[in-house]
């Protein structure tokens, strides 16, 4: 074995040892480097953009329509406290209060991409908070009932009769809301009758104005 061959062999061996050492240092470095909390969910810029957008809101009329048509892709989430939920809630709604959003059993309702999740609270602010938490984590298909239950009462349970000067669309919407109210078990027939009575054209109040008496010609030429 020549000296040149021997040197070459030693050099190759050294090179492999060096490469093995580099791999070991790099692997050890991963264990030793200080750990930091990683950013989870969507990027902050996108989150801000989503907050500023109103696309998350769904109106009570659209929700009522989807509920009446028994849309299978719809899930309602009541974000109020358990006590408030027991007292009253929308039909088939699931109760997930703000502090239980990341609860192992309940989180599966929010973290999915199959159903349209409609969040609601008394107004829409509490539901908005839950939406923000979900959106921040990158959950899909979350919506908020605009105006919450207050708006639901105002529009579906006790709809306001449109004034005479309003368009036909307003009257159609009123009819829809009355029908929707009946679907949800509200006995609002009396209300309609009352409204109908009001709708009756009021007899025009004839304001009699005293006719100006013709003045007797006075004098003249």
């Amino acid at each position, binding site marked *: 074995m020549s000296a040149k061959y021997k040197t070459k062999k030693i050099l190759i061996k050294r090179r492999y040892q060096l490469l093995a050492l580099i*791999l*070991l240092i790099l*692997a050890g470095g991963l264990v030793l480097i200080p750990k930091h909390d990683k950013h989870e969910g969507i990027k902050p810029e996108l989150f801000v953009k989503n907050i500023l957008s109103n696309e998350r809101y769904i109106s009570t009329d659209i929700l009522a329509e989807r509920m009446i048509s028994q849309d299978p892709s719809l899930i309602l989430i009541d974000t109020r406290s358990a006590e408030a939920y027991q007292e009253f809630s929308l039909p088939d709604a699931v109760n997930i209060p703000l502090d239980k959003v990341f609860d192992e059993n309940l989180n599966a309702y929010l973290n999915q991409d199959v159903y349209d999740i409609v969040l609601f609270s008394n107004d829409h602010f509490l539901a908005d908070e839950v939406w923000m938490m979900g959106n921040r984590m990158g959950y899909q298909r979350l919506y908020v009932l605009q105006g919450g239950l207050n708006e639901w009462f105002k529009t579906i349970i006790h709809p306001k009769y449109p004034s005479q000067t309003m368009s036909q669309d307003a009257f159609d919407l009123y009819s829809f809301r009355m029908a929707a109210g009946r679907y949800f078990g509200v006995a609002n027939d009396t209300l309609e009758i009352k409204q109908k009575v009001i709708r009756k054209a009021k007899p025009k109040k004839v304001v009699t104005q005293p006719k100006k008496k013709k003045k007797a010609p006075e004098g003249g030429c």
Partner: protein
Amino acid sequence: MGPIIPNELISVEWNFVIAILIGMAFGFILESSGFSSSRKLAGVFYGYDFAVLKVFLTACIVALIGLFYMDYLNWIDMSQLYIQPLYLYGAIIGGIIMGVGFLAGGFCPGTSLCAVAIGKIDGIVYTAGLFIGILIFSEMFSFLEPLFEKSNMGHVTMDETLNVSPYWIILIFTVLALLAFFVSDIIRKRVKKVFY
């Protein structure tokens, strides 16, 4: 930032173009490293050539360490990477069949295609056998399916299963790989040299 396609840094159509380019580069390097020779590949079982073990383990460690450094620097999101589901019994039985096939034929599926590309007859015969095997497996799939489905453990990883930091697993894996290189060198020196 990464992975680049799920994060829409480049369009999804590039997926196939990149896959073809990487595949060509991979095939070229395999062939130029002598991995289209069944004698070299089978050497790992007979103890006269451990190039296969060294190359694939090194590639594995480099990719592993590299990915985790990139994850640490937020260059890539590891949670977005696809994890192959674990079919436990399927993996064990498939591993045994693959091992026997590798030892008997002297190729693994990738290197057999390399051998076909340079016109090696043993490679062509091996690949024909590979396709016959795929056909038999496909025809028997409805019969074999329960074996797979029952042992589907989902997208599991070692760090989650053992509840150990992935960084420690990487370190242990690297040490074991280096140890394997060292031991394989000792075995190679003791085994009679084969020239091919």
